[in-house]
């Protein structure tokens, strides 16, 4: 075919541009955060990042090797006068090799991922965890803290309503002194155990720096998410599950502060709350419009 030469030149050029682009990605890591992950800010995230890098090098290696072989074949075995194609239907030994090796790699990857999933990310939250209730609604978040007694109290999805966004059990005295906030204020280096519920549709609890995503499902209390922030600073919680016309702007501020600052903030908030019958949440209104 007379076209192959020009085709090759073109394909080669495209590939070169593409690889140069990839190279630029590596040359410009993190400094501007144009290309890469935001810096991790929780304990468990370290393991997730390690796993991402491991998979990156594994898949990157496989990609580069297969593409080099592939492009080499394409160039080497282009149609040439007088050189016939090799007549072969395959090779069973090769089939076995390239079935067995990927199977072993994938099962190994599953084993490690699964270990991380259970033993690190979803292990039982430590006893000293700060309990925080997270309520999601169209279109915002609200957070509930245990109050002076340090206990959030029982909650059930069936109790969730406009007046009781966090689904607190009305008969549980532990919930009576709970207070709420429109900002997720948390201390650094202390485990935070969150309890998620939604009033209307499915929302998402997503903080890229915390390497956490969890859907918030109406009709369910989700209580297995916990994390330990390691960096003081301001972050943003984003709803990342399409939830309606206001989804694009459904977010909340997160402030990770020192233990001392947190205590101060917490005591002030806790003092302001008068225990009320039926655990009705007076401070919900402050979060309505954000």
């Amino acid at each position, binding site marked *: *075919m007379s*076209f*192959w030469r020009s085709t090759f030149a073109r*394909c080669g050029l*495209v590939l070169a541009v*593409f690889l140069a*682009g990839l190279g630029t990605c590596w040359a410009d890591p993190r400094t501007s*955060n*144009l*290309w890469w*992950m*935001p810096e991790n800010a929780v304990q468990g*995230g370290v393991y*997730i990042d390690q796993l*991402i890098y491991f*998979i990156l090098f594994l898949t990157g290696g496989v990609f580069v090797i297969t593409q080099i072989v*592939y492009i080499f074949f*394409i160039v080497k*075995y*282009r*149609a040439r006068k007088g050189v016939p*194609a*090799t*007549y072969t*239907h*395959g*090779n069973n030994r*090769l*089939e076995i090799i*390239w*079935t067995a090796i990927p199977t072993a790699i994938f099962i190994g990857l*599953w084993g490690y*991922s*699964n270990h991380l*999933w*259970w033993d690190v*990310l979803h292990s039982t939250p430590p006893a000293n965890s700060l309990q925080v209730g997270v309520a999601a609604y169209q279109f915002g978040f609200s957070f509930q803290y245990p109050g002076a007694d340090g206990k959030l109290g029982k909650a059930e999805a069936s109790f969730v309503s406009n007046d009781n966004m966090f689904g607190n059990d009305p008969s549980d005295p532990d919930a009576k002194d709970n207070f709420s906030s429109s900002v997720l204020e948390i201390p650094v280096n202390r485990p935070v155990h969150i309890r998620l519920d939604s009033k209307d*549709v*499915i929302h*998402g609890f*997503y903080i890229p*720096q915390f390497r956490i*995503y*969890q859907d*918030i*499902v*109406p*009709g369910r209390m*989700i209580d297995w998410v916990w994390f330990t922030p390691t960096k003081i600073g301001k972050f*943003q919680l*984003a709803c*990342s599950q*399409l939830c*309606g*016309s*206001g*989804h*694009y*702007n459904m*977010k909340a501020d997160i402030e990770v502060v020192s233990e001392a600052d947190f205590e101060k903030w917490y005591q002030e908030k806790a003092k302001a709350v008068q225990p009320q019958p039926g655990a009705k949440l007076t401070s919900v209104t402050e979060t309505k419009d954000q």
Partner: protein
Amino acid sequence: MSQTIAHSGPEAHAASAHHHELSFFHKYIWSEDHKTIAIQYLFASLFFLCIGGLLAMGVRYQLAFSGSPIPLIGTLLPKWLVTDAGAIQPQGYNGLVTMHATVMVFLVVMPLLVAVFGNFLIPLKIGAPDMAFPFFNALSFWLFFASGIILLSSFFVPTGFPAAGWTSYAPLSANGAYNGSQAGQSLWCVGIFVNGLASIAGAVNYITTIINMRAPGMKMFRLPLPVWALFITAILLLLAVPVLSAAAAMLFFDLNFGTSFFEANRYGQPLMWQHLFWFFGHPEVYILILPAMGLVSEMLAVFSRKPIFGYKAMVYAMAAIGVLGFIVWGHHMFVSGMNLMLSSAFSFSTMLIAVPSAIKTFNWLGTVWGGSIRFTTAMCFALAFVSMFVIGGLSGIYMASTPVDLFIHHTYFIVAQIHYVLFGGSLFGIFGAIYFWYPKMFGHMMNEFWGKVHFVLSFMFFNLTFFPMHNLGLNGMPRRIADPNLYDFLKSSQPLNIFVSLSAFGLGLSTIIFFVNFIYSMFKGPKAPRNPWNSTTLEWTLPSPPGHGNFPVTPTVYNGPYEYSVPGMDQDFLPQNQPAPETARVTVH
């Protein structure tokens, strides 16, 4: 109608060659000839491709230039979509995203692969006069067309497009008060239901035809790989689509008749929708890629002038994908709030399903190895398919690992991945296949030079558009948010969003070259010979285009589908319907 019902056996074929002239209506509108139906599907789905593409341009415009009015047409658009100044509104954006995906999945890729090439190729490749149920076949097309009209008609209702995403997660989708477009969402349910009927009719047809109507000598292991792929796809369709249809009906009842299958506030189960949807949705992913794998395998063999490497391994790998495809749906739901133990289990089956894809990739490499490669446009697309599919397959491994999914779930990383599989994979396969089978469909050749221009531009802009989306995802950009500028952590990556959008516009424009070539060649393209690519399968033994009833005499099949470069032969291909000459040293794998 009775004269077009398929019979097998040579007498029937002889009879079919002497049909009386069909009326215009029976020839072009309600045709029961599988080739005409395939072409009807082709025109319709290419039309929908333009619509889906325009919707994507709208999405990319908004992500790069949110708040600026759309040039030229902005103020002409309906008020649910744009502000008075002509800029896209958030709710309108949700509608664009929803309909772009719905159109591309249900009205473009699925019909292009399954309906166009399934209808056109199955009878021709197995030596049959038509499909087993020609009436069903015609019905299938018109149901499909109706479903497209129903889905798109939501553009004209006051509340606009459905806006709950193509996945339509309940309870957002189940309540007009939540999603803001009760009418649009209801039309979505009806459209998907009708579309499902079309798929089921097609699937029954394909399975019956392939099992019952193969020409003498066409053993199952002599079927060309596109036929195998379509056969397995049809089984997947038959088992998966009814689940979606049922779910869509339930959703319609929730929306309009006050039932509460999915709404938690009325004791329904929101996660049940996700289980039903993804029980369909994951086999669907393979429905959208398996036929492309089959088509590409054939093009690689033809233009490498070699038998496909590991034919049986290819078939077993596709069958394995078909079986495993039904037990991996939960990997869409690792973080949905379902039991964490289920996430573990689905992660395991997901890792396993990567194996057959790896096997196929290695066999494609094996096919190219030792070949004598001809770089036609079709081959360029087929070669690109393999590379792009490798990227999409490898980036899928990130999501299969549950802890990593915890970070990148529902970000642009997944958007990048799905487009590498569905655009770089399926759509590149489709483009290649159109360039390849166009001569047989229309009797004219497409222009190779402009074909290659189309290829190079698409390949380039495709990668420039979708590769940076991986980076956007790693930086935490969620899917389906109308304005990334509103998030502090996304401000730094906004230049990348603009770059992606500009590349996407380039990708959209490059497709125009294809359409011009497609239409121009139909009238002015050089006349196509019977077998322009020196191919072995049965459709190339017929005139281009083949007449009504296909084979004047039922062919007998003597060989496997890909006997290229057989030693001891003068020509480098051995058609399936010719016995091997004495000198040929054919080996059977």
